[in-house]
C-alpha cells in the first residue's frame, strides 16, 4: 500500500519547500516545447529567436514551465498531493545556459467546508536571483493516513 508521505498537519505557515536547481540546456527547451506540442520556432530555432524575437536564444515555453512547477510541488507532497489551482505571472524568459532555481514557501493552510485540507504556496523560478516566473498554488493534502484528496468528486471537491 502506498501511504501518504505528507499530511497537512505536518505543514506550518512559513515552511520552505526544498530548493530545486536545474541547469537548462537547448535540449531542455526543445524537449519541453515538443512535449507541450508547442511548435512555435522561438522554442527550437535559435536563428528565429535571435533575429525575429530579439531574444538572446530559444527559451522555455509557458506550458512546459507549468509542468516544471507541478513537478516541483508534487516532489514535495508526494502522489497524494492534488493540485487545486495555480496562478502564473510571467516576468522573464529562461534560456539555455541558465540555471533555474525553484523556491517555495507555505503561505496559508486550512480545511474547506467539505473537509478537504489544503495548503497555499508562493513559488518562484529565478535565474541569478532574478525572478522569471512567480506562481501561487493551492494543493490539497490528506488530513489523515486514510484520507485521499483524489477520492473527492462532485460537491466534495471545491478547488
Amino acid at each position, binding site marked *: 500500500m502506498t501511504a501518504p508521505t505528507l499530511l497537512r498537519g505536518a505543514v506550518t505557515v512559513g515552511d520552505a519547500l526544498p530548493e530545486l536547481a536545474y541547469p537548462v540546456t537547448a535540449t531542455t527547451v526543445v*524537449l519541453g516545447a515538443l*512535449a*507541450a506540442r*508547442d511548435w512555435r520556432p522561438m522554442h527550437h530555432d535559435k536563428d528565429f529567436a535571435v533575429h525575429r524575437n530579439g531574444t538572446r536564444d530559444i527559451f522555455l515555453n509557458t506550458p512546459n514551465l507549468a*509542468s516544471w512547477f*507541478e513537478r516541483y510541488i508534487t516532489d514535495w507532497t508526494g*502522489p497524494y498531493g*492534488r493540485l487545486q489551482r495555480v496562478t*502564473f505571472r510571467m516576468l522573464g524568459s529562461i534560456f539555455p545556459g541558465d540555471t533555474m532555481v525553484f523556491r517555495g514557501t507555505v503561505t496559508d493552510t486550512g480545511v474547506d467546508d467539505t473537509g478537504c485540507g489544503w495548503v497555499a504556496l508562493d513559488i518562484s523560478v529565478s535565474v541569478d536571483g532574478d525572478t522569471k516566473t512567480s506562481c501561487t498554488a493551492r494543493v490539497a493534502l490528506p488530513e489523515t493516513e486514510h484520507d485521499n484528496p*483524489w477520492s473527492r468528486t462532485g460537491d466534495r471537491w471545491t478547488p
Partner: protein
Amino acid sequence: MSAIGIDDVEGLLGVGQYEEVGEFPVEQGYIWTTCSSVENGNPLFWDPEVADEVTGGPIAPPTMVSVWFRPHHWAPDRSTPGLPLQIHFDLKEGLGLPEAVMSDNTIVFHEPVRPGDRLRTRQILRSVSDVKTTKLGTGRFWVIDVEYHNQRGDLVAVESYTGFGYRRAGSEEAS
C-alpha cells in the same frame, strides 16, 4: 473568428464561443514525454499499481490540460487552425488595440483527465475594463476563461487569462 467591438462586449459576456474537440484522445505517450521533459518521477504517472490505488487508474498531469488542444503542425484536409485564445485576438482587432500582453494565467483543476478521454473546450469572455493607461500604453484589460470538459460532460479544468490590449503611448488613442 470575428472582431469584437466595444458595442458587442455586453452581449458576449458569459457566452461560450469557439467550442472544439481535441484532435486526438489523451494518451499515455505524451504523459510520459512531458514527465520526462521535467524529470517528474511522481509514481502516479509511472506505476500503474500506485495509480490504481491513489487515483483509481492512470491520470494525466493536471497542468497538461491545454496540451491536448494544440493542433498538429500539419494535418490533411485542414484549413488554418483557430488560434488557441481566439477571443483575445478578436478583441485586439475589434477594439483597435495592436499590442497585447498576458499578465497572468490561472488554472483551476476539477475532475482528473485520464488516458483515452476526448476533451472539449470553449472560450468565454468574462470582462472587459474601461480604458486604462499603464506604463505600456492606453487600452483595456480583459479576462477570458477557457473551459475544458471530458466526453462524459464533467468539467476537468478552467483556465483564466488576464490580457491587456493597448496602443503604445504617443500613438492614436485607443478606441
